[in-house]
């Protein structure tokens, strides 16, 4: 075995990677959906979005382990807290900068991210946490290990995506959101109260960020910087899908999750995170309007 260097060994294809990709893709898809809704209406890159996810996860964690509530109830609490939380952050901070440029808002969101992430560290410490729950055996189906948590992630994601789809298609608020995302000025001329719409967008986007964080915490661990480190593939999904395009973002999310997990067949495992980075770079450089979308600016 002279010259054998384990670093450069790639894995052979395994259907397990597809399942793992579906799980990771589900999380990215949900997170990207919330981000693209906010991005579409507010028109700025919110760096603090990852920290919204973390806040949702930590509140659910507190309800789950510190108050012994069942995980489902805890998850609902996390979502509600983050929905209201996103609105509160807007009222306290972002609303005051509404007339300023997208670049100023981007920098402001960095400040918000600093505050949220370090408040989490002060309240819950820096260590990693887990939701309480038995560590269950993973049953095998056709040679694929399927953890109960993973099934929950995939099912909940589909429910969230379906619910949001109905909201955007069937309700007046949802239709107004899509109109404003396409063309804010036109929507305003047609009599849509865009400031009120912003309120709904933060509520819906915040709730989705919260549940995305909870799913992420269920799949891995709950850490103060969990959302921030997950941000790049999420942004990549939003960009690939076309900014403000919910269906595109979801498709982009699944595509990135599956590509990332399957990539270990062709590149060393250590470089798995490069997939999200490269897709974001390539996506922005080649087609900033998204693969599915049309130019939004």
């Amino acid at each position, binding site marked *: 075995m002279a010259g054998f260097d384990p670093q450069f060994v790639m894995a052979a294809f395994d259907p397990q990677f597809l399942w793992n990709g579906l799980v990771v893709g589900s999380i990215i898809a949900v997170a990207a959906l919330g981000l693209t809704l906010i991005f579409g209406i507010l028109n*700025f*890159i919110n760096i603090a979005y990852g920290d919204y996810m973390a806040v949702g996860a930590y509140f659910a964690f507190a309800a789950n382990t510190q108050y012994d509530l069942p995980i489902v109830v805890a998850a609902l609490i996390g979502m509600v807290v983050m929905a209201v939380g996103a609105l509160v952050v807007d009222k306290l*901070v972002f609303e*005051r*900068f509404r007339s*300023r*440029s*997208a*670049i*100023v808002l*981007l*920098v*402001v969101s*960095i*400040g*918000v*991210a*600093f*505050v949220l*992430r*370090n*408040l989490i*560290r*002060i309240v819950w410490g820096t260590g990693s946490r887990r939701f309480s729950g038995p560590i269950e055996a993973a049953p095998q189906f056709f040679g694929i290990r399927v953890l109960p948590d993973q099934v929950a992630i995939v099912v909940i994601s589909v429910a969230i995506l379906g619910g949001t789809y109905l909201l955007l298609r069937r309700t007046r608020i949802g239709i107004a959101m899509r109109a404003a995302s396409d063309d804010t000025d036109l929507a305003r001329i047609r009599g849509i109260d865009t400031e009120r719409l912003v309120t709904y967008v933060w509520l819906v986007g915040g709730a989705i960020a919260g549940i995305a964080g909870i799913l992420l915490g269920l799949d891995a661990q709950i850490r103060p910087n969990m959302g*921030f480190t997950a941000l*790049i593939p999420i*942004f990549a999904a939003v*960009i690939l899908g076309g900014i403000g395009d919910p269906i595109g973002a979801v498709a982009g999310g699944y595509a990135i999750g599956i590509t990332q997990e399957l990539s270990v067949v062709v590149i*060393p495992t*250590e*470089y798995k*995170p*490069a997939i999200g*980075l*490269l897709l*974001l*770079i390539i996506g*922005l*450089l080649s087609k*900033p309007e998204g693969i599915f979308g049309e130019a939004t*600016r």
Partner: protein
Amino acid sequence: MAVGDLALLVATIMGVYSLLAIGLNMHWGDTGLLNFAHAAFFAIGAYTSAILTTPPETGLLANRTVGASYPIFVGLLAGATLAAAAGVLIAVTSVRLEGDYLAMVTLSFAELIRLVIHNEGWLTSGAQSLKGIERPLEGSVPIRYDLFYFLLVLGVVAGSYLLFRRLAGSPFGRVLHAVREDEEVPLALGKDTTWFKLKSFGLGAAIAGLAGGLWAHYVYAITPNMFLPSLTFTIWAAVIIGGAGSYLGAIVGTAFIVGIRQVTRFVPSDVPFASDLPYIRLVVIGVLLIAVLYYRPYGLLGDEERMLAGSEEGAD
């Protein structure tokens, strides 16, 4: 450690970070480019200089097989050059993007570079620290070594400050300012604005690379975790608080931010909330950043006209 030693340590960190802020001020303050890859330029400078001046590891657990023992000034020069090259390379691909998109692309490039540093242990020692980095002239200076190093950094900061301020006031700098305000105008006057943006990116990255080298030779050991995106964000906060467009502001803003971050070193560990202080001070930086952008958008020493140009008030 005595208070004097601590003060020198903090002042040296302020100096190195000031160089980063000077580079970022060329990008954002002078040219209006949203560079979020600054931590990567700092890392390239640090690792290049460290690898070129530190022989490979030996022994059973040796990881890094590449290294050399060139003089330190060669390492510093190579680090700055390589960082500049990386800056130009990133800029060539992405500088045409609109502001906030450029931010995302540069942030991604920076993380990609950090991923490579983290994974290629044969070159960088990977996640373990690259240790035993030599300090210049150690043992042969007539004064206390940490005082010497501080004076060295101070000299580099002063030189860079004068150079970059001069550049900003030169015809070259005036084109950069025009690009920042409205790219169409210099373009219509026949200036190759892309070329100017590349030069701005390269120069700012070079000074960040030099800062990286000075950092590596000061701290003995470097790890990939020293070059996280939060470092880039911290320098951004410093430049914005100090006042974008002003090099003196960049230095003052850095001193201010580093001061907040390092002040806890002077606080005894038995005060209430002492263990939370590292996070409390980051909350303070976040709040300050937002407050400055709201109440004083041009920062402590920034150029008020710079902020007004391009906005509706400035158009009157």
